[in-house]
């Protein structure tokens, strides 16, 4: 596939340096030659000169289990939305490897700032998946304690959390928890965002602040090719990972459907941050197999052929092939994971349906740490009003 020069100008235009296509190359449907990969879609282990590493059978089986269970959380939640138990759900289908790779590369002291789609990272951090559903059911706006798992609440305004991550990382620096050489102390922060968010001012400001202060933050962009209906071409004329160079820190593109490569690359970027070498942009090149959310209809804007071609790059299938071919997992193991997934699905289903609605008066709670008399009076007024409807609440 060829692409026109983005500027439309001939390369002999004087004064502006080389043509952009010469610098960045034509756009690549397959992620291009810069794509870091350790496990091909066919399940072949390949090697990379920088990010190669050995994985134990236990680690590989662990990745497989994480991805299968994460996918089950996603399909279960999607079904719960269809049954009217959730108002909406943001699906992660197809992005399991990117999230599990990024999530398992973390150390306990690291801190994660997610979007609203990081169900797999939440899983790795030990957040009860049932707690993820509250936001989408409408019973809360984030039901877990961020400090319990170093996993911030989901952020819905696109890209806002990248600044929070950068500021948190600046706090880490001020606490002296960078570059001490103590593996249990040195701390990295991860800012998750997507290809759509890469256009936001906040993301670009986060890049600038992180670069300026050399903050220990990893910008982890899941480029799933679509921001609702808008393709990546609407957000960027160059591969996203190359944007980092303009901000003064390294960027890499990893196969986001390859859990091994995502893990290895994120681990290296996190260590770089912990060592005090500053920010890194990791572009996990993946594909949003499902809709943006359960309210979206992707058949209106994208070709089923594209979806079919990405199905062949499924993140779970390639690990299963590798495990089987190398005798690292047998039918019993795979069946046990399926059984565990079924059990998880059941737990989520029942837990979601029995999740109680909050009390009306709870809306007055926690508006402030130090409640105001004004708000207290409003609460009391509404409580008294409700009292006039005997037995109706």
């Amino acid at each position, binding site marked *: 596939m060829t692409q026109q020069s983005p500027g439309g100008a001939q390369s002999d235009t004087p004064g502006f340096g080389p043509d952009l296509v010469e610098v960045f190359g034509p756009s690549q449907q397959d992620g291009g030659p810069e794509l870091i990969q350790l496990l091909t879609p066919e399940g072949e282990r390949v090697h990379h000169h920088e990010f190669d590493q050995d994985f134990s059978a236990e680690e590989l089986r662990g990745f497989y289990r994480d991805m299968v269970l994460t996918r089950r959380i996603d399909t279960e939640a999607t079904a719960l939305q269809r049954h009217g138990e959730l108002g909406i759900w943001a699906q992660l289908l197809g992005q399991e490897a990117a999230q599990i790779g990024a999530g398992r590369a973390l150390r306990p002291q690291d801190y994660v700032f997610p979007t609203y789609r990081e169900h797999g990272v939440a899983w790795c951090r030990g957040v009860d998946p049932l707690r993820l559903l509250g936001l989408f059911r409408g019973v809360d706006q984030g039901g877990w304690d961020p400090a319990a798992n170093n996993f911030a609440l989901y952020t819905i305004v696109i890209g806002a959390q990248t600044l929070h991550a950068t500021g948190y990382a600046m*706090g880490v620096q001020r606490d002296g928890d960078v570059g001490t050489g103590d593996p249990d102390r040195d701390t990295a922060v991860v800012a998750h965002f997507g290809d759509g968010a890469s256009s936001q001012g906040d993301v670009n400001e986060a890049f600038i602040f992180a670069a300026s202060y050399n903050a220990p933050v990893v910008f982890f962009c899941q480029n799933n090719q679509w921001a609702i209906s808008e393709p990546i071409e609407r957000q960027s004329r160059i591969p996203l990972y190359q944007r980092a160079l303009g901000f003064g820190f390294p960027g890499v593109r990893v196969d986001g459907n390859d859990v091994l490569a995502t893990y290895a690359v994120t681990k290296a970027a996190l260590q770089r941050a912990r060592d005090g070498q500053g920010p890194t942009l990791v572009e996990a090149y993946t594909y949003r197999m499902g809709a943006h959310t359960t309210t979206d209809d992707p058949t209106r804007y994208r070709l089923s052929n594209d979806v079919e071609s990405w199905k062949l790059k499924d993140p779970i299938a390639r690990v299963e092939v590798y495990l089987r071919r190398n005798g690292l997992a047998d039918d019993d193991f795979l069946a046990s994971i399926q059984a565990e997934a079924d059990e998880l699905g059941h737990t989520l289903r029942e837990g979601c349906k029995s999740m109680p609605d909050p009390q009306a008066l709870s809306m007055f709670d926690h508006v402030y740490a130090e409640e105001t008399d004004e708000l207290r009076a409003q609460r009391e007024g509404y409580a008294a009003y409700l009292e006039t409807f005997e037995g109706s609440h």
Partner: protein
Amino acid sequence: MATQKITLAKGLNMGLRKAMEDDPKVLLMGEDVGKLGGVFRITDGLQKDFGEDRVIDSPLAESGIVGTAVGMAMRGYRPVVEIQFDGFVYPAYDQIVCQVAKIHFRSQGRVKMPMVIRIPFGGGIGAVEHHSESPEAQFAHTPGLKVVACSNPVDGYWMMQQAIACDDPVIFLEPKRQYHADKAELDESATPEPLFTSRIVRAGTDLTLLAYGPTVKTAMKAAEAAATEGRSIEVIDLRTLSPLDMAPVLDSVRRTGRAVVTHEAHVNLGLGAELSARITEECFYSLEAPVLRVGGFDTPYPPSRIEEDFLPDLDRVLDAVDRSWEF
């Protein structure tokens, strides 16, 4: 203990210094707040004494300043950020309204957001566009934020420390016209009033005049002038705009039967509208006249050569006082 005469700029500077001495988690961040000491010199000398890690010169990006301060607060710091001028706060508006204001609520109280956002506000300094605005209503309208405005050097000193000690995010409005204007006697051994309280700054019996920030001085002058005509005006410095401290206001209006509100912000849906509504709801049978408002007109802030016509001044306040007796 000895007292000293200080300006508002000095009071704020001393308040920041004291807060930083008392709590190592207090950080300052903003554009030019370090070496330069801020364009108004409010942070003068602080970077020299507390270092670049605690007094942080930021890139020129307001959303970035507030957004990173959110992350610092989540890490346990108490960031105090300076927005260089009122008209530059809008790039940070999303972070302030969607994040700073809501994180405590969203997290069901698990994540506190002890942040102070300092904004020099108001006009009268002959500045170019975007340097003379009064955006307080936009923040007072946002649940989760607290909004205060200081009017004098002594309040600047105490209110700054109290705002920093508050576990909620505080929009801290500083009347830039007053920074270097008048001096007042500060006694650091005194016990300050609580932050979210209004104060009667001149007692009177015939009319209640409500003001905050830069208009307190105007209101005091108006009360003096009115006294020569035999009218006794009570002036209240609101100090807190969200929450409002209505008790002293209502008590006063019940005694005087008349109220005028003055602020530099546009009259339409300004603080005066809210005050008028609350006074009417609570003091309906005490009122001799409707609550009247004197503020900036509902125009964009005009070129500075005609800003004195936009800003409420002594005569326009007195005109409203006169009109109160026309009912």
